[in-house]
């Protein structure tokens, strides 16, 4: 079972939790005690392309910090995405606004443009949240 919490929304057992412009935004897996994180943001819609595969930055001027339970990706000093593992649940905080994509989370909601998603449950769907 996979359970991801994004801005108080729960996405459970979905193949692609978040898709932006046709590309799955992120994926993760645990291998030999290591958390391996992948991120894919294309340009456009972002103002710069970012590609990370299993914690290895392949494209984009970003930094990544990872340990066995969390991963954080920053663009200069701006946090873009943070993934925290808490048992079976993964908490995802993201802020893609520095990339020109108006999607971010706060403690209450996931914001997509002016729209707020809060306390929703998406379960057993192929895709959870699809943008663009």
């Amino acid at each position: 079972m996979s359970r991801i919490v994004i801005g108080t929304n729960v996405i459970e057992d979905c193949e692609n939790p978040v898709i932006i412009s046709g590309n799955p935004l992120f994926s993760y897996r645990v291998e030999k005690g290591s958390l391996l994180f992948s991120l894919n943001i294309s340009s456009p819609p972002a103002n710069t392309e970012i590609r990370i595969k299993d914690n290895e930055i392949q494209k984009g001027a970003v930094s990544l910090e990872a340990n066995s339970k969390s991963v954080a990706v920053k663009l200069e000093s701006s946090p873009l995405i943070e993934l925290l593992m808490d048992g079976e649940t993964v908490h995802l905080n993201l802020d893609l606004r520095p990339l020109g994509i108006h999607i971010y989370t706060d403690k209450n909601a996931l914001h997509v443009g002016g729209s707020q998603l809060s306390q929703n449950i998406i379960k057993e769907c192929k895709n959870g949240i699809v943008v663009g």
Partner: protein
Amino acid sequence: MTTNIRNEVLQLIGKITNYRYPLRWVDEKTTVGDFDGRELAIDVFFIPTDEQINFLSQIRPVRKQISDMTVHPCIFIFHSPDATLTHYSHLFPVTRGIFLVKGEGIKFPLPGPGGTESSPIFSDTEIHFDVKVAA
């Protein structure tokens, strides 16, 4: 003014104000009221009255750059949190408490740079939430 320039201006203002306030270029279809200079006006939403001067101070370093991009100076129209919710709540729809199982998920059009609009579309049931409140 091209769409790209309009988007760049919003991105520039958003960045320098730390994306604190949703912004958009005034929309002739949904803006309340009519006035001269509408084509160079930017709505600033959810901004308390006592933060408006600070907003103008924050953008001062890029105002010249913005004027160069837009050719003319821009007008900023401030909407307090109460006024935003009273007159422009259709730009900020809230989807709460949905339980979606074995569907196609929740879809959104790609949002513009200012952080307004972008209503969810539930494609599996073909319900389109487009909440609008008459001003």
